[in-house]
């Protein structure tokens, strides 16, 4: 997607102008308790038209912006442990053709996922719930999520869109200057249906070549915790999309395949709804604008489709997954 928000351009300008007169304008750290709020329930889930199981994740938000979470945030791959998980909720998935499933709390030791970062999973509950007997989702069917927790009920509903166009995946080589290394960014080509309005989310996951396990349901698990929010509105896409580059998530340069060694790469493209697009785009914009706000869009919480006061989003998307091997020198 074209980067529509130009805020980084403008907000830095503010600092520039401020600096013109001996840099008198400035920023200062203030007492954070000024803005403190109560923690809230966060729900994220993903249902696709690929075979399950499907995952829903429940955590708490942190009301005081500067208080450390139960386990302090570290700039590591410790992706699942930063915020307090909710492990005692009732999570039910339904559709409008008669299927119902009560999801199970997924804990350490579950054999659903594995990656090269195996250590990550030897922890207790991460707030994930997994479906047990829910059939593969289908286009045109409506899906309902119901979460009960501490006397409160949170619900969401979404309909499966039409199938996502199949993709071809290649790699775009970018040599690193003065360094014997080439980065291979996955690029995607596909036929964009021009007769309908479409929105896409694209991401990729690199799997180390020596890791052999990529188990059932990973396509629904990883995207929930993936930090890339590359979403595209088809308004600007040519009918034949060629070599659309999927950016590496910000702050994760190591995620990109490189010439150091060949990687097995899972590339995922999702056809998503307008509401889901707005949600992911809102988070993408937050990532970009997170430090200077005066020239950026006026802030608002990412739009949620969950009723009952929870944060997060229940995504129902058609998916086009692909396994590819990245090149090696």
């Amino acid at each position, binding site marked *: 997607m074209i980067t529509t928000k130009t805020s980084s351009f403008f907000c830095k300008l503010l600092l*520039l*102008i401020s600096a013109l007169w001996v840099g008198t304008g*400035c920023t200062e750290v203030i007492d954070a308790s000024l803005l403190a709020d109560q923690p809230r329930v966060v729900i994220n889930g993903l249902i696709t038209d690929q075979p399950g199981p499907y995952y829903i994740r429940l955590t708490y938000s942190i009301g005081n*912006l500067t208080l450390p979470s139960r386990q302090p945030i570290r*700039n590591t791959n410790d992706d699942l442990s930063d915020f307090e998980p909710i492990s005692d909720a009732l999570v039910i998935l339904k559709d409008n053709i008669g299927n119902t499933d009560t999801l199970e709390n997924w804990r350490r030791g579950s054999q659903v996922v594995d990656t090269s970062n195996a250590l990550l999973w030897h922890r207790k509950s991460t707030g994930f719930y997994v479906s047990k007997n829910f059939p593969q989702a289908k286009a045109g069917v409506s899906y309902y999520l119901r979460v009960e927790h501490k006397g409160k009920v949170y619900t969401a509903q979404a309909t499966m869109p039409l199938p996502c166009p199949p993709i071809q995946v290649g790699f775009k080589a970018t040599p690193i200057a003065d360094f014997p290394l080439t980065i291979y960014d996955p690029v995607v080509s596909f036929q964009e249906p021009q007769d309908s309005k479409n929105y896409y989310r694209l991401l990729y996951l690199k799997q180390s070549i020596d890791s052999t396990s990529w188990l059932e349901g990973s396509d629904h698990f990883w995207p929930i915790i993936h930090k890339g929010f590359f979403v595209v509105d088809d308004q600007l896409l040519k009918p034949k999309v060629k070599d659309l580059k999927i950016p590496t998530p910000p702050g994760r340069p190591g995620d990109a395949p490189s010439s150091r060694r060949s990687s097995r790469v899972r590339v995922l493209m999702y056809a998503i709804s307008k509401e889901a697009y707005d949600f992911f785009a809102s988070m993408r914009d937050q990532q970009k604008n997170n430090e200077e706000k005066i020239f950026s869009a*006026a802030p608002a919480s990412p739009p949620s489709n969950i009723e009952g006061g929870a944060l997060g989003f229940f995504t129902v998307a058609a998916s086009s997954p692909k396994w590819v091997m990245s090149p090696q020198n």
Partner: protein
Amino acid sequence: MKYVLSKKLIYLVLWNLCMIPLNTQGQRLLHKNIHLPRTSGTVHYFLKELQQQYQINFSYDEKVLPKQSLKVTKTHWLLKDFLQKLLQNTRLQFIQISDQIIIKKDKNAPITLNGNVTSKADGEQLIGATVYIKELNTGAVTNAYGFYSITVPPGKYTFIYAYMGYQRKVHTMPLEQNQVQDVALSSLVDHLNEVEVKASQEENIESIEAVQMSAHTLETVQIKTTPMLAGEADVLKSFQFLPGIQNGSEGTANFSVRGGSYDQNLILLDDAPVYNVSHALGFFSIFNVDAIHNIRVYKGGIPAQYGGRLSSVIDIRMKEGNDQKFALNGGIGLAGSRLTVEGPIGKKVSYLIAGRYSYLGKVGNLSAQYIKKPIPGVKKFGLNNAIDFYDLNAKINLQVNEHNRIYLSGFMGKDHFFNELAFEDNTLDWGNQTGTFRWNHIYNARLFSNLTMIYSNFDYSYVIQNNTQHFKWMANQQQQALKLDFDYFASPRHTFNFGLALHHHRFNPGRLQALDRSLPLRTFSLDTKKALETAAYVSHKYQINDQLSLNYGLRFSTFHNLGDGIQYIYAQQRLQEEKIFANNAIMHSYFGLAPRFSLRYLLTSTSAVKGSYSRTYQYLHQISNTSIGLPTDVWLPVDNNIKPQFADQIAIGYFKEIKQARYSFSAEAYYKWIYQIIDYKDNANIFLNKNIETQISNGKGKAYGLELMVEKKKGKFKGWLSYTLSKVERNIPGANNNLAYSPRYDRRHNLSLVLSHDLGKKWQVSANYSIISGAGITVPQGVYLNGGNNIIQYYSARNAFKLPVFHQLDISFKFKSHQNTRWQDEWILGITNVYNRKNPVIYYLTNYHTQRQISHLYLFGVMPSINYNFKF
């Protein structure tokens, strides 16, 4: 006396004697049918012609007949009708005595005095100057071109010509026939000591008398003495010290008037609307004070001649150019330099050219180069900034003859931003161009007209280039307009204003051009939109008696979306249908009937109460969801999805002049209801959005407040203290989770002080001080996890968090040297934010992934400036 009486007696006897035969013979003579050989000629010509052709016996003194040629519309007349037509506006009358028709002066016929009031030093027309007749306790006010007209019974009168900041002029003269009296007033600046005495002896005849309330006139002299950022005198920021005018972010040019949005202010430069008033993203306004003659701000009771915006009119008039002598002035400062030349060409033409160039980027580069060691943060801004702007004002006017004058004026401004390091390769350019042609025509001593042709254009473009994108985005909007306005000065008690206006709008909201063909982007354009806006208005100013005056009027406006284009039809937020329209086909129309009413009641000769009601319509709106507004915020017309905003405002006020008008006090209370007010919805995506109407919504708003002001207008020590207590609230579906909220500029208390003091002839010290309730902002209230280490913020309700109280003191010292020579100059040393108050404009979260912190950003610490100005 005896002679007069005897003469009157003779006429009376003669008249009575004549009345008897008139019943028969007289009736026949005056009802005679006549045929004229031609339709134009002098009064004398027609009388001679009738005498010869029909043997009618006329008796008259040739000296009293007007010399100018007249034109009648037809050749066949009744003699009586023809004579009435012929002598209309001549102050002559006819009577029949026997078979003779006597033409003589009508000593009781009203006489009209008209003319122009100008500034003696440079010939500039003085707008809103008072022409006061002492004996009748009545008067007139000059219109937007310095023209006045006053019709009174014959007699000997004392005329007082007055204008704020100028020495009054008193003329005592007999009025026996229609007369033109042009008056040039001298500026008080040049006659300071002399005037102090005279002014105190005169009656107060100015602001109390006016029916208009909720309005302010700012003189450029006043604006130039107000300390400003970088010493750059700024029209729009000076306004912000007036009561009822609020700002959301200090240091920027956007402002809210009585709770209205930033786009609800109609800003006119020589009648041409200006759509973007900012240089350098709002830190400076585009109006060069050296080229400006007069600024009038209307906050309520807006006259019927203005329309198109809900909340205010800022009517800025450029100087006409000095018609007395060649003059040159300019200045050099930290932010930029400026130069103005003006002068006469012959006796009938004068011109003005004023230019300004800012080198902010270069100053920034030098700052970065030399202060990077003591202030390391500056280094990151790089050494190759190109943050520059210029603007150019030009005007020429020609006095064709005593009845016609034409003006041609233009403005052009451009901004450019480029910063290699901080912004990668992104650049932003924007600019305004306006042009105005005006033709003043005086039909007769009482009827004045002005025909205006207007052009206004605003465009911007920017280029974004980084790893995943490289494109250029361009947009513009244009307006052409034709206006015809009439001022009819029927009598001192009745003045009429009426006119017509036709505006054509064209909007190109955006076109994206991919600059790198290897990227899978296509060229993309948002729909071009066209519209036609029309208006007709009439207003009547009626002085019922010495105490009570009314001004009431009506403005009728229409707005039509024109093809070619696509009309989007939605049902429950989903696009249902696209209707295609041919070129210039009417796609959708709106109509608005806007009554305006104001009254003034004089309690005493120095105090008055005033009240007003006005309705206003707005058919264009600016879509912005940034905190302070950017050049990229687009203006769009209403359409079938977005309805026009309209507002009703009532205001009541008390006005008092104290100590021979050295001081004035005013108190005004207002309440404004805003209907179908527009705002963006939560999480709106308004950029590159083809269906932008889905991102905005109409709702209701209200604003109310109390404004107090004490002003010292005369003397060495001048200034004002203003206080505003106000509240603004909106309720718009889709915004703020459908709950009521206030805009950023809803600030409960606002106290402002503006002072200047002349210390002898060479030194002047000025100061501003403001203390204002904090602006409302949306703040992050918590974080949650959404994927990996993605910490997502969630926010408070819209603008629900109030920033701390804003307060700031600015001072400046002016030293004038060489005042008695042709070359005059002055040095201005200014300090903005004297005691280094850190007024935050925003709170935000930093260090997401390590040690999260809340920081605030403030724009300016203590900032000194030095400027040098010269005049030749």
